[in-house]
């Protein structure tokens, strides 16, 4: 294939990849349309939402969300909620476990609790792009808007500012707290608590929302078994007591309902986002003295089988919306898929019970009709033997007929059976409508797969020339592609993907050892042994962060060893910074004296280290316990972290520009001279390190990535640097270098603690130098923070490849990109095929969808922007 044709093919392949990904994504994560407007009583032609039985037992609600309040935190033996437990025993509190669907992060959960709908996976993306207005619930029907629409309706809100973003200008009084530093266990909650006594004395509101973040912070920081956990629970219990006693004593609060719930739970490592049972089982308690009339109390604390989180009755989180509607007497929100919690129906006599369930069922029927437009739902089908029907729509239609027929003729039907039928219909509808298969756009999925297939074929034709040069590297490359592709179909391999890369990398290094050993000349044997330190460092790197699902939270270096020996941590961090500074000082600012460049590098390095120390002081103060030595490294501790980060970024940028442009200019003039004398062009590989433009660039980039990493991960850069220096000594061919780079990029991603679960996304460095909610800046910083390892290896690969002398330079980079594209396009193709084939699988939302999101980031971010974009730029800088 001619050079020009293969460049064209490769370009087309790389253009097809994002196209395929986006088309597939629109089919896979369809935007769920919602019914606009507000529900109101008596607006239906068949009397739905009719409030002729207006006997709501409550007129006010205090909705208390405790972030990550897992069921066992309230109900088990080891709980700080002693007062709440006493209320459960007395019957004044009705306990439930509220099943939260994945993704278990705050915004979609709040959406589920307030609208009663099941938020789409798209909300995960929107959760990170927080300023996005499409996620606002201001225009949707929620129980908040229903409460507000009541005469005298007024809402107040204190706590997590997610609520303020979701409900702009809904609250009359509000004080939002942001969860900026998870190390803050107390301040963030005190800011909420101080408003409680004041609001308890006010009588002007009918809905109050308080959202505590401290417990979630403790979880993220130290896990569910942290010593801080029980005192925090006791603190929360005290607030419950305070509010409950106010309800008992204050006259204007006598018909107030208190709801205490978690938005999601947490896993054993204290994280959430996925679908482990701990993450999906938050507690839900309804409290009021009035419940004593309908409940005789339940056993508390309760003992359940180990590693189970199902306490009392399990309901769906979306059931909160219709239940509140019934208890407070307002119409059920239009998009609700929740079912009134049957235990709470006991407030009413049979007529009203039936009416409430009927209302609930009719409201859900509106949504069901929209999903199954071909079916009648008019009660004409036979209402018997519904269980034997195989299509979901027909079953629902049949259940609906059963329900309507059991009331025939009106006024004389069997009320008890009708109640059963309506409940059955609603539950079934909830099940069907929240299940997965309903709304894929299969056509788009197919288009995406075909395009990804075309990209794969296209780039394999260009990569094949590079791969055919060496049979063994070709075989390794295709084995990695095939094995990785096959792995995408098994949920546990997706969850534990890190093992594949560690396993393949160590095999590859062993192969390199054997290969070098048998092909190097007799005197060069020692070079083969360079694989051994590479392997040893890889062994250290792989235990740096325990990741994946199965062994998350087990002892490792970053979360167990280094926090326990924090002086070692900071010595390693210091060594890493010093290493960068010493390399930088030799290569930065090549046009000035050595002394100036040393001073500049040292100043920048100190700024970076000082920022990291200050940041850690705020983010993870326990890592600095007892280390007063380091406080002299905080010359800027008076400045805000944002200002420090900005100063640092500007410094890096300035040094970068000052270092590379002079070199490029010089080189351009040299090249001009060479042409004049008509000599063969200078081989840029002969350039000494002093004139290398990429070297200082790489070091500055390293400094930036270190700024974007947690303190405990920073020593990894030192290990990478050693690996990179060793790789420089080993003589690898172009394809071998590419394969090594690919393996190390993936391995390093997981070594930094990454995984294929949403819960492992690290947002701690996402706001460095950003004051407001700048989506673009926060997005880029989040990506750099989570992909720091792969980004580093991209830059290192450009450095390593540019030093090789034995081949045409442009051709070598072209081969590198074409082999990488082969890896990426086939990876994307297999993820798409897996998502397509397993779209009705139980784990589709919990394992495969997050994997798809990750592979979007890998292919569009890491591959297109970084490996091709940034990598080519760096390579060009070095070799132009």
């Amino acid at each position, binding site marked *: 294939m001619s050079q020009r044709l293969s460049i064209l093919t490769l370009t087309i392949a790389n253009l097809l990849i994002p196209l395929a990904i986006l088309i597939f994504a629109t089919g896979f994560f369809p935007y769920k349309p919602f019914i606009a407007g507000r529900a109101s009583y008596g607006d239906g032609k068949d009397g739905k939402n009719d409030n002729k039985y207006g006997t709501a037992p409550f007129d006010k609600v205090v909705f208390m969300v405790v972030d990550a309040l897992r069921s066992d935190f309230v109900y088990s033996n080891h709980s700080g909620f002693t007062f709440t437990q006493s209320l459960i025993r007395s019957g004044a509190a009705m306990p439930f476990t509220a099943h939260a669907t994945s993704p278990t992060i705050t915004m979609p959960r709040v959406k589920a609790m307030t609208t009663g709908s099941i938020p789409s996976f798209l909300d995960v993306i929107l959760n990170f792009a927080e300023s996005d207005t499409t996620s606002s619930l201001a225009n949707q029907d929620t129980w908040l808007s229903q409460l507000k629409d009541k005469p005298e309706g007024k809402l107040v809100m204190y706590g997590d500012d997610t609520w303020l973003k979701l409900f702009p200008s809904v609250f009359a009084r509000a004080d939002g707290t942001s969860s900026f530093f998870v190390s803050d266990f107390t301040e963030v909650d005190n800011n909420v608590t101080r408003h409680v006594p004041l609001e308890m004395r006010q009588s002007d509101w009918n809905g109050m929302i308080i959202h505590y973040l401290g417990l979630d912070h403790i979880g993220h920081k130290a896990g569910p078994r942290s010593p801080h956990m029980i005192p925090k629970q006791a603190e929360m219990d005290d607030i419950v007591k305070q509010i409950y006693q106010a309800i008992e004593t204050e006259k204007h609060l006598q018909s107030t309902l208190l709801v205490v719930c978690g938005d999601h739970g947490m896993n054993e490592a204290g994280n959430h986002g996925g679908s482990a049972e701990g993450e999906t089982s938050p507690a839900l308690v309804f409290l009021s003295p009035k419940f004593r009339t309908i409940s005789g109390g339940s056993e508390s604390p309760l003992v359940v089988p180990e590693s189970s989180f199902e306490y009392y009755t399990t309901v769906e989180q979306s059931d909160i919306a219709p239940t509140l509607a019934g208890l407070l007497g307002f119409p059920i929100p239009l998009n609700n898929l929740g079912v009134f919690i049957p235990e709470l129906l006991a407030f009413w006599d049979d007529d009203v019970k039936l009416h409430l369930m009927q209302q609930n069922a009719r409201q859900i029927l509106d949504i069901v009709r929209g999903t199954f437009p071909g079916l009648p739902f008019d009660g004409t089908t036979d209402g018997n033997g519904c269980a034997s029907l195989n299509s979901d729509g027909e079953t629902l239609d049949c259940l609906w007929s059963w329900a309507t027929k059991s009331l025939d003729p009106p006024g004389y039907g069997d009320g008890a059976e009708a109640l059963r039928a309506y409940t059955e219909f609603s539950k079934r509808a909830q099940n069907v409508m929240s299940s997965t298969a309903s709304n894929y756009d299969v056509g788009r999925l197919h288009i995406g797969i075909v395009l990804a297939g075309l990209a794969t074929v296209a780039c394999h034709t260009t990569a094949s020339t590079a791969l055919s040069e060496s049979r063994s590297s070709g075989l390794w490359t295709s084995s990695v592609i095939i094995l990785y592709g096959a792995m995408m179909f098994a*949920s546990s391999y997706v*969850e534990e993907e890190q093992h594949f890369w560690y*396993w393949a990398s*160590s095999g590859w290094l062993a*192969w390199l050892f054997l290969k070098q*050993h*048998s092909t190097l000349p007799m005197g060069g044997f020692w070079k083969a042994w360079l694989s051994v330190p590479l392997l*040893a460092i890889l062994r250290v790197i792989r235990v740096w962060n325990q990741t994946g699902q*199965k062994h998350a939270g087990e002892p490792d270096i970053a979360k167990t060893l280094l926090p326990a020996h924090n002086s070692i941590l900071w010595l390693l961090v210091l060594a890493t910074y010093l290493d960068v500074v010493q390399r930088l000082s030799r290569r930065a600012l090549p046009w000035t004296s050595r002394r100036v460049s040393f001073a500049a590098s040292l100043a920048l390095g100190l700024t970076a280290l000082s920022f990291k120390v200050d940041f850690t002081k705020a983010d993870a103060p326990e890592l600095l316990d007892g280390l007063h030595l380091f406080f002299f490294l905080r010359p800027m501790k008076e400045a805000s972290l944002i200002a420090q980060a900005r100063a640092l970024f500007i410094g890096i940028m300035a040094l970068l520009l000052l270092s590379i442009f002079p070199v490029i200019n010089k080189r351009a003039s040299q090249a001009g001279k060479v042409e004049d004398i008509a000599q063969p062009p200078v081989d840029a590989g002969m350039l000494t390190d002093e004139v290398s433009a990429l070297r200082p660039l790489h070091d500055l980039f390293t400094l930036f990535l270190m700024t974007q990493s947690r303190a405990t991960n920073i020593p990894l850069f030192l290990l990478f640097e050693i690996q990179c220096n060793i790789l420089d000594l080993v003589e690898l061919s172009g394809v071998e270098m590419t394969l090594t780079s690919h393996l190390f990029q993936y391995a390093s991603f997981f070594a930094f603690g990454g995984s294929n679960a949403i819960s492992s996304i690290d947002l701690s460095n996402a706001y460095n130098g950003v004051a407001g909610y700048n989506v673009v800046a926060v997005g880029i910083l989040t990506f750099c923070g989570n992909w720091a390892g792969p980004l580093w290896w991209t830059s290192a690969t450009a450095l390593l490849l540019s030093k090789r002398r034995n081949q045409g330079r442009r051709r070598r980079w072209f081969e590198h990109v074409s082999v990488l594209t082969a890896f990426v396009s086939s990876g994307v193709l297999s993820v798409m095929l897996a998502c397509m084939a397993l779209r009705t699988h139980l784990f589709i939302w919990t394992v495969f969808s997050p994997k798809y999101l990750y592979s979007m980031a890998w292919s569009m971010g890491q591959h297109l922007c970084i490996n091709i974009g940034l990598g080519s730029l760096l390579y060009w800088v070095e070799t132009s």
Partner: protein
Amino acid sequence: MAETTTEAKPRKLLPISQPISVLPTDVARIYTHIHPILILSLYYLCFPSLVADPVTTLKQALAPLAHLQITYCVVCLPPSKGSSTSPSTSSATPKKKKVTFAKPIAKPPASLKSRIIPAVFSLFLSLSLSAPLLTVILILFGAPLTTHFWHNLLCATHISLLGVLPLFYVHGVDARMWREISGACLPFDEVWGGLVGSILGAWLGAVPIPLDWDREWQKWPVTIVTGAYIGWFVFRYAGGYLLRGKRIEFD
């Protein structure tokens, strides 16, 4: 993954080794087929208790395994010719494409005693040298360092007895020979195939561990040991027949 070919390209390190043949006696020709069956039966019998208690089982299985391997060496394999002499008849450059097998060692077997002593010596070497080395390799490849030390050591000892013991027996401690071995340049025969197979099998044995089947046998190091035994069995025959005389091709 290992591409093989008979073509002997010019190498920097010229391999001088020749494939090993089984001794030309009837007993040897028969026992060389009985031996792998005995080994696999031993493994099969041990499997339930291996899953239940790996350390004890691996420890108890060492003695029978060592006996079987020594018997195999003594009955079937030609002992090395001492430490310093390389096989005299083998030429450094095999010019013919067809390698002639078994010529250097087609002599009738030496006395029993002169075969038992090197076999015991090989056992000693494989326990003291290659077992610790393989432990280090296992750890470098990701074996749990702090929690499963005995598991790793015993697993490495099994691989060592399976794969390395016969290699010591047939090649002795010739330095040049071992440089070839560490560069994996030996021609395939049933001894070298056994070592390659057991190591490759151990590496592949790690594959089922992350699966969420929650079976007891997924625990460390059951799959590794299993992989090593199966790999040894497969490559022993592959090396003895299919791949015989070929070398791993690195380019």
